[in-house]
Every structure is written in structure tokens, then in C-alpha cells.
């Protein structure tokens, strides 16, 4: 009974007799341990007579200290030398002593710090290598499943596809529209400020249109989808993995690639071009509003410049990247989900990793594509 007012345990040495009294409980652990340690350092002999009759409260923490004080061997047969102790107390002391006979110190692997550091670097490098191999393998698997599925229309999961288009696409429209609108306005402001010095504010129109058709529309939509949807894919599939649902799908004789990955991936590839288009429109709209209200360029003039100066191929270049980005984001999101291993922490780690990876991949690929298109003169 852990009553509120108790006397902490005491250790007294009288005529080479060790008297133990008071409460030996968790509440007084620090005080008691101090006493036990100082007793140990004061006397070396461990075979003095012991009087346990004054013992009031005792729990496992107190028992642990008493065992430390008197030694596990001696405590293990406490019933022989302290027969007047209540039976329950004897049982407690003996149980604790029996446990403490062996050393409970777990063996910790020890390494030199330098070697540790090198091992860490090595592990990271191989992990990166494995990750890329796995990603390529997963892409291959997805493509073969996709091809196999395309030829068998009765195995298309139309309901799942539509549901995912709804979740990942339709629900993302407002945020994509708002974000690109704001960025469009910012780009226009930026252009106006820089171009004013050259008396060329009219070129703000070209700047906004070029930026959104070629790069910003698709990039912003892709980054938003990477944050919004890749994480959702990872968490969904990861939770299913942790709950053994993936194994259940396999055991029923179905293919998780076909059931889970393809609908998500196709939904992404349908929806990202649409979101990109919406992003382009809203970005240009944002720029147009700044032009109209701040730069005194009329709406008709804005449209006329668009029509005269911006050929169709910029739009196609921007839109053409969307399905590729969508594929990458979807594949990374799903693959990270499959890599989840059981625990809640693992779901969190892989969700983070899927967002970081997909954003990184999108930007990297966009940079490569920009270089390529420039060299090609498209």
C-alpha cells in the first residue's frame, strides 16, 4: 500500500549487526540507494548478521536495493536466516534475488567512433544504391503489370480509378488554383519591378505566360501533389502493409500491384495534366490581374500579346512533363508504402521519405528537361 506519509527506510549498524527498518519502497529510492552505496563503501565484509524485523513497507524497488546490499546469493535463501519475516516478503525477496543472480547488463556493441562513422557513410551509400535499384525494379514491375492489364479490359478497376481521381484530383483543384494564382501575381510584380528600369514593362505579359506555360504550372501542381498525394499513398499502403492486408491480398491470389498501385498511378497520370492546365490558367490570370490593375495593360492587349508572342509549343512542353511527373510521384508514393515495416514510426519515416523523394525527383527531372528542351530549341 503506497500510503502518502511513510518513513523512509533506515540502515543502522549496531555491534556488527545490520538493522534494516522503515519503508523500502520506490518513493524513497534515491535516499535508500544513497544509504546502500555508502554502506558498501564503508564496510567491506558482507557477512554481518542482519535484522529485518523492523522492515515496514517493501516493493520490488526496495527488494532490489536489499539484494544489492546483502548479495543475491544470500537473499535467495532468505527464508533460512530470516524465518520470522512474513511469507509474502520472503517470496518477494527470493524472486528478486533469483532474477538478479545473473548480470542484467545487456551487451552493447562497442565500436570505435571513426569506424562507426565510416560504417555509417557506407550504409548510407549502399542504402541509396538499393533505393535506386528498387525504384527501377518497381517501375519495371508497374509497367509490365500495366501492359498485362491493358490487354484485359475486364480487369480494369474503373471504380477504384474514379475514386482516386476524385480524392487526389478534384479535391486538390482549389489549392492548386489558389497557389498558382498567387505565384502568378508575384511573378508579374517581380517582372514589372525589374523591367520598369528598361521601360519594358509590357514584357511582363511574356514573362508570366512563358513561366507558367513552360515551368511553373506543371512544377507547382506536381509539388503540391507530391506533398498531398504521395504522402497519402504511402500512409494508405503502409497501414495496409502493417495490418497484413497486402499479404491477405496476395493470399487470396490477387495482385497488389494491379489492385492498389495501378489505379493510384493511372489516377495521378490523368489528374496531373488537368491540374497543370488549371495551374497555367490561374497563374496567367494572376499575372493578368496585376498587369491590368498595376501596369495599365488592358485585358484585350494582354490577350493580343499572348496570341502574337506565345506559340503553342510552350504549352505542349509544359503539359508533356505532367504525366511523367505524375508517374514518378505515384511510383515513389506506392513504393515507400510497400517498404513500411509494421510500426507506427516506420509509417511516419516512409511518408516523410516519399514526400522528400518525390519533390526532389520532380525538380531534378524538371531541370534536366529544361536543359534538354533548350538544346533542342523547342
Amino acid at each position, binding site marked *: 500500500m503506497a500510503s502518502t506519509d511513510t518513513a523512509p527506510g533506515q540502515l543502522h549498524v549496531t555491534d556488527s549487526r545490520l538493522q534494516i527498518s522503515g519503508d523500502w519502497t520506490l*518513493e524513497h529510492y534515491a535516499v535508500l540507494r544513497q544509504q546502500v552505496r555508502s554502506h558498501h563503501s564503508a564496510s567491506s565484509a558482507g557477512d554481518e548478521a542482519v535484522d529485518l524485523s523492523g522492515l515496514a513497507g517493501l516493493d520490488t524497488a526496495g527488494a*532490489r536495493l536489499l539484494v544489492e546490499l546483502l548479495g543475491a546469493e544470500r537473499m535467495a535463501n532468505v527464508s533460512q536466516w530470516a524465518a520470522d519475516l512474513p511469507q509474502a516478503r520472503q517470496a518477494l525477496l527470493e524472486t528478486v534475488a533469483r532474477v538478479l543472480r545473473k548480470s*542484467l547488463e545487456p551487451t552493447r556493441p562497442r565500436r570505435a567512433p571513426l569506424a562507426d562513422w565510416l560504417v555509417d557513410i557506407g550504409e548510407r551509400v549502399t542504402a541509396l544504391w538499393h533505393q535506386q535499384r528498387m525504384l527501377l525494379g518497381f517501375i519495371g514491375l508497374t509497367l509490365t503489370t500495366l501492359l498485362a492489364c491493358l490487354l484485359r479490359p475486364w480487369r480494369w478497376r474503373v471504380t477504384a480509378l474514379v475514386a482516386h481521381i476524385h480524392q487526389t484530383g478534384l479535391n486538390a483543384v482549389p489549392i492548386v488554383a489558389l497557389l498558382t494564382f498567387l505565384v502568378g501575381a508575384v511573378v508579374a510584380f517581380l517582372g514589372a519591378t525589374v523591367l520598369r528600369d528598361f521601360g519594358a514593362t509590357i514584357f511582363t505579359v511574356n514573362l508570366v505566360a512563358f513561366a507558367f506555360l513552360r515551368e511553373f504550372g506543371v512544377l507547382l501542381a506536381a509539388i503540391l501533389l507530391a506533398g498531398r498525394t504521395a504522402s497519402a499513398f504511402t500512409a494508405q499502403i503502409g497501414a495496409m502493409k502493417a495490418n497484413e492486408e497486402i499479404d491477405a491480398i496476395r493470399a487470396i491470389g490477387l495482385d497488389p500491384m494491379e489492385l492498389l498501385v495501378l489505379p493510384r498511378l493511372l489516377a495521378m497520370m490523368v489528374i496531373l495534366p488537368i491540374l497543370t492546365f488549371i495551374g497555367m490558367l490561374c497563374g496567367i490570370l494572376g499575372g493578368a490581374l496585376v498587369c491590368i490593375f498595376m501596369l495599365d495593360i488592358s485585358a484585350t492587349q494582354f490577350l493580343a500579346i499572348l496570341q502574337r508572342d506565345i506559340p503553342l509549343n510552350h504549352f505542349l512542353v509544359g503539359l508533356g512533363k505532367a504525366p511523367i511527373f505524375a508517374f514518378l510521384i505515384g511510383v515513389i508514393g506506392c513504393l515507400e508504402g510497400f517498404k513500411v515495416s509494421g510500426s507506427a514510426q516506420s509509417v511516419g519515416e516512409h511518408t516523410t521519405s516519399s514526400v522528400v523523394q518525390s519533390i526532389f525527383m520532380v525538380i531534378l527531372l524538371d531541370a534536366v528537361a529544361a536543359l534538354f528542351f533548350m538544346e533542342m530549341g523547342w
Partner: protein
Amino acid sequence: MTDAGVKAGAEAEAESEVLIRVRGLANRFGSHVVHEDLDLDIRHGEILGVVGGSGTGKSVLLRSIVGLKRPDAGSVEVFGEDLTALPPSRRSELERRFGVLFQRGALFSSLDLQENVALPLLEHAGLTRGDAEDLARMKLALAGLPPDAALKMPSELSGGMIKRAALARALALDPEVLFLDEPTAGLDPIGAADFDRLIMTLRDALGLSVFLVTHDLDTLYTACDRVAVLSQRRVLVADRLAVVEASDDAWVRDYFHGPRGRAAAGAAGAAEPITPTTSRENT
């Protein structure tokens, strides 16, 4: 066997001290009534087995007693105080005297085992980290885990080891009442028998009272002093196994005198003759 002697002794003194008194408990989920006018006592030093069909609210009863679910009516009196009427601070003080082992262990997956067990010690007992981990390792050893398990993460463990580690955490603050929710579910028979024995040993050594929700007939026959049967929204009967077995309720009859009940009773009877059930087994 010595267990029989301990059991008899425990029963004799048990009549006097009731630790937890549940009276008129009612629990509802929407229109679904789980408990109604349910009474139950948990006595000092006993292992009380709680059985009942799936969906009869065994886990809900456990959650109501430890304060995880607020009952819709009735009182839960713990160590002489009504848990539902207490201010939160006093409540948490009382709840510290409970140890709970959840059905799937509920170990914190981001901490290793010794940190899992040390957490309540650090938070409530104000120990230093070194002391807390030292005690945690002892608790893990008491629960029958090898020393090297202390640094393992929960995800690296088998089902039996998770149960043992969760038991060690439940024991961290030296609780007076231990609540176990299906501790042997999912363990192999050897592991389950070990776990039964472990609980009995700890009960005797630490003077615990144990509230044991179980489906395991072997556990009922080997470990439990009293058995409470949940049925028809209340505790149908709570008494020694011999009395419960003799009850003429249809569910109880099917439960204890079905093929599995007979087998478990036969095994327990062969080891230690506690219940004269042979005459009733043909029903």
C-alpha cells in the same frame, strides 16, 4: 501441489478485503447496451478470471474499471473511493496503483524495451535515468526476458516476448491490481502455460490482485481463484470454478462442458484435483 495451499489460504482471507467494487455499472454505445446493472468485486490477492462470449463487453468492463471509459451509470469503487466522483489529480494517483496489460501489448514502438518500462518510473517516481533503467531491466527479467532483450525495439519481438515486455511495463510502478486483457491469446501452448505460471509466481511474490480477461480455458483451470461469467449484460455468476461450472445457465454449460472445456478440466484435474466435476460432464 503448493498452489492449492496458497489458493485456499488466499480465499480464506479474501472475503474480508475487497479492493474494487463495481455496482450497478451500465455502458452503452448508442442504442447498443453492453452492460446494465453489473456488479463485481475484486478481492485482495486473488486472480479473478473474467470470461464471456465475444462481444459481451469484457474489455469494456476492464476499461471502465481502470478509468479509460466513463460508465454511463453506476459506480466503480477503488480502494474504498468512488473513481467516477474523484477530482482528476486524485484519480490519476489511484490509477497509478493499477497495472494494465493491453491485448496487443501496446508497447511504445519508438522506444526500446528498457525505455518502455522505465518511462512510468521516470515520469511518476522521479528516478534518474540510470536508476530507472536499472529497475526496468530487473522488471524485464522478472517477466522472464533475457538481458539482451532490454535494448531491442518492440518491432523486433515475437508475440510472446511482447506480452512479457508489456507485463514488465504494467509492473513498473509496483501496482496492487494488475489488469490483463487476454494475455495468452496468440501464444503457443507452451508460452501460454509459462505465462500462466509467471502470473501466479508474481501474484504470490508481489501480493498482486489480478483481473484477467481470458478465453483460455487452461488459464482458467490452472491460474484463477475465482471466475466471473459475463452474460446477458451483467455478471451472471462470480465464484470458485467448481461453483461456476455447476451453474445451470446454458452458455456456462456449453462453455465449461463443451469438448474444449472437458479437455481443459481433465488436464487440470489430472494435475491437481480441485473440482469434483466428473458427474456433470455428461450433460
